[in-house]
């Protein structure tokens, strides 16, 4: 009796599938509970990986619900590489579709923020741009330049107060979330990623920089989004967080 890996694998993610034939107990009888050990290892270890990756989602839905949610997720989106620290990329899209959490409309963006923090943590180390370079550059040249951004920088734009929700559930003593949408900048000054809410217009500005628009164009879109846009504050957040790494004057 041959037991192929297709047969062995097919039941691992499907609790209702019978154990494949050809797997035996010491007495030669078909292995049932022994096969379930592998089935359990797969589901439990992948669920634990998701618990580590999405602690705030877990807190928001509760531990028992998160296990159900993770079980559905890992069956629909099993990992496609052995690098589990990056597992869960499809979680925001999954939460948008997952029926039981439809009334929690902010969950997908909270998952985006948790993903952004994790990707930032593992991103490449780069030398930040010396702020003096920006200060000394004539305005017309700066406006025409494009900036290179650190791989550890991430932007999460949300119509929900996503950063406040995240903080309220991740940090002791954080205030209750307001009702306003938030654009969140993730920066990594050293090895620990930091999330910060951008001022009005800041999301449009950073978004344009990420699309490799010229500095001046990014500034225009920020002012279009928020006429009182404060460039100094947003630029300070980017520079202090080591998010700018170069200037390209083509």
């Amino acid at each position, binding site marked *: 009796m041959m037991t192929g*890996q297709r047969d062995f694998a097919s039941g691992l993610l499907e609790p209702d599938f019978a154990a494949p034939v050809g797997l035996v107990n010491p007495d*030669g*009888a078909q292995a049932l509970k022994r096969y379930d050990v592998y089935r359990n290892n797969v589901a439990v270890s992948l669920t634990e990986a998701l618990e580590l990756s999405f602690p705030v989602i877990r807190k928001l839905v509760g531990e028992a619900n998160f296990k159900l949610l993770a079980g559905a997720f890992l069956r629909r989106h099993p990992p496609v590489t052995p690098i589990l620290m990056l597992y869960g990329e499809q979680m925001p899209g999954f939460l948008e579709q997952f029926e039981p959490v439809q009334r929690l409309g902010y969950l997908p963006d909270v998952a985006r923020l948790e993903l952004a923090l994790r990707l930032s943590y593992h991103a490449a180390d780069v030398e930040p741009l010396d702020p003096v370079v920006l200060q000394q550059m004539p305005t017309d040249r700066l406006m025409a330049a494009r900036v290179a951004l650190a791989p550890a920088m991430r932007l999460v734009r949300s119509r929900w107060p996503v950063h406040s929700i995240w903080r309220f559930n991740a940090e002791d003593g954080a205030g209750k979330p307001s009702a306003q949408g938030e654009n969140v900048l993730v920066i990594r000054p050293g090895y620990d990623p930091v999330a910060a809410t951008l001022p009005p217009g800041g999301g449009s500005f950073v978004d344009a920089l990420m699309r490799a628009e010229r500095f001046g164009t990014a500034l225009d879109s920020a002012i279009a989004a928020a006429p009182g846009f404060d460039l100094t504050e947003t630029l300070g957040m980017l520079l202090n967080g080591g998010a700018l790494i170069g200037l390209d004057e083509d």
Partner: protein
Amino acid sequence: MLDATAHRFDRLPDAPGVGYKPQHFSDILSNAGPVEWLEIHAENYMGDGGRPLAQLRALAERFAISVHGVGLSIGGEAPLDRDHLARLKHLVGWLNPASFSEHLAWSTHDSHFLNDLLPLPYTNQTLARVCTHVGQLQDTIGRRMLLENPSAYLAFAETTWAETDFLAEIAARTGCELLLDVNNVYVSTTNQQTDPYAYIDAFALDLVAEFHLGGHHADADETGAPLLIDSHGCEVVDPVWKLFAHTVAKSGPKPVLIEWDADVPDWPVLRAEADRAGAILQAASA
């Protein structure tokens, strides 16, 4: 790249090592005790940068490092994942570890990574396939690897080879060395209702370059027969220490690793396990 001083660790010392956990970073640097080397799981160091790689670079200046892969699926029916081979080559290339090891197991099917070390039947066909994969890995990373015996919960009706012979034959055909996990021996032989000492006595100990020790939990199958689960979540049990002492008395001292991956304890608890392993090595070399 690491500086030249790191290259003095060209082999693992015949001493205790531990599976590295980031929460132990400063304890290890200030109070390593008997621990002379560290094992890392390759897949946890495949990010682009950040703290994990910075910690690894710092540790590699002080300790010999063993890179232990848990995701290549050497026992898989499918060809090895070329992307993953390239990642392993990159890691081994920049880190230049003292050792690289992987498992006689599979974990990937249809491009899905199942995150468990799954068993394979031991037949002429699977032997040929595993040898091809071991050869391909060794060619890719440009060095000899260690292949580890798995923990098994069940058996395959189609198996025709004893695991000990199967591993020795892979080593003979590919030139790889073996990693003998003594806890896995105890778990597998208990689960298969065979004799762990007979397994050790049949094992090609001259091909062993490293030992593993870890904790397991006890359960029972649907007939009430003992079913040990290789959990790596507690202390090494006394029967496994005894089996290890028997093994080392035959093989002589070799590098030995304490694995503790779930419910990871504070450093002194893990260090005490390393102390106990070190005492057994010393008794064997006396």
